[in-house]
């Protein structure tokens, strides 16, 4: 009887040790995860304000302060690269992926093996969007501004364009 119970106790001890290791692993990362969540929330607000400024003013601000965006954490940075593009970086303390371990269980049983990955936010995009998954360290996006062009080549004939800002038409060869 005693030997049978000892065998079960050893098995339970192994699972218990695994649980403790997992708990420690989670607790160690909790502080960094909290700071990253605060960073993400602040960065998300900045992204909304920046996109709104871009839409309202049809141009990029020279800095976040120029767009009246205050209380910017040190982990968020904005750099205007040209009149039509800028770089937006958010620095995180830990990696966060969109892998859902519990839903992966049902995926395995249904054969839908997904391969989620942390989104690569270093690629160029036309709209600033902050993904919830991120790498540890700086996550930068280079955004090409989506400001509307000041000239319109579609509403005129195929040989000339119309400049909205000056109310003048010009030869289409400039844009081709």
């Amino acid at each position, binding site marked *: 009887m005693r030997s049978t119970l000892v065998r079960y106790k050893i098995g339970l001890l192994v699972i218990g040790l695994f649980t403790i290791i997992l708990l420690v*692993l989670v607790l160690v990362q909790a502080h960094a995860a909290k700071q990253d969540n605060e960073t993400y929330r602040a960065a998300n607000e900045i992204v909304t304000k920046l996109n709104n400024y871009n839409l309202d003013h049809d141009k990029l601000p020279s800095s976040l302060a120029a767009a009246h965006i205050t209380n910017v954490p040190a982990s968020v940075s904005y750099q205007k690269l040209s009149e039509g593009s800028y770089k937006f970086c958010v620095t995180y303390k830990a990696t966060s*992926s969109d892998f859902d371990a519990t839903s992966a*269980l049902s995926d395995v*049983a249904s054969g839908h*093996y997904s391969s989620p990955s942390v989104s690569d936010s270093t690629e160029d995009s036309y709209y600033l969007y902050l993904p919830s998954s991120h790498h540890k360290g700086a996550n930068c996006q280079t955004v090409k501004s989506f400001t509307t062009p000041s000239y319109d080549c579609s509403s005129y004939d195929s040989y000339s364009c119309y400049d909205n800002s000056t109310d003048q038409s010009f030869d289409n060869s400039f844009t081709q």
Partner: protein
Amino acid sequence: MDEQPHPHHHQPTDGGMPPGPAQSVPPAYGHEPAQHAQPWAPPHEPMPVAQPMSAPIEIPQLQSGQSPRPVPVVQVLSPVGVEYVFMIISLVTAAIGLTAALLAMVNGKFDFTVLAFPAALLVTGVPVFAFLFLRLKKLELRNPALKLDPSKRRTTQATQIISFIVSMFTVVGLIFAILAKLGGQSDVSIGKAILDALCVLVVAGGILAYYWHDEHKG
């Protein structure tokens, strides 16, 4: 055990009503002989009810001093059976946590957002399961008849069935993933699919193997 028939209880064997005190029982509708059928009555007249239409069936009288036989209408678990149900719930909780954690680690995900929920499942499930498992195992070793407790057997058999279904569909999912890969419908690596399936099979298959062996070792 509450589930075992009480000496004074009547257990219906065919789903019918148990006999009560001696009384005249009319035959069931649809089974009465044609020669005893009531003559047709006009619709405005009330139909006679509860009148014997054939010879009454005699049921032996209870002896004096005996109370009418109670009829079990609610199936309850035995006290130990409730503990088995608690143990299985905590086992399922811990098993989901363990499998989710293994799946995350196999996929190289060690971050807080991924591991927090599996850790919560394990921290809750493992101590409760360990306590109840050891307690019930001690009781079983002291009293081997407890293994035949209907509540316990129903719970462990349900666990076997569920873990069998999970294991079976994991194998189905793995084969489907391999076929989808061969057919170019999926870009997931077969090695990763096998590892993922192994995580589920180790836990669900382990539970199935333990309870299968426990029930068949006599």
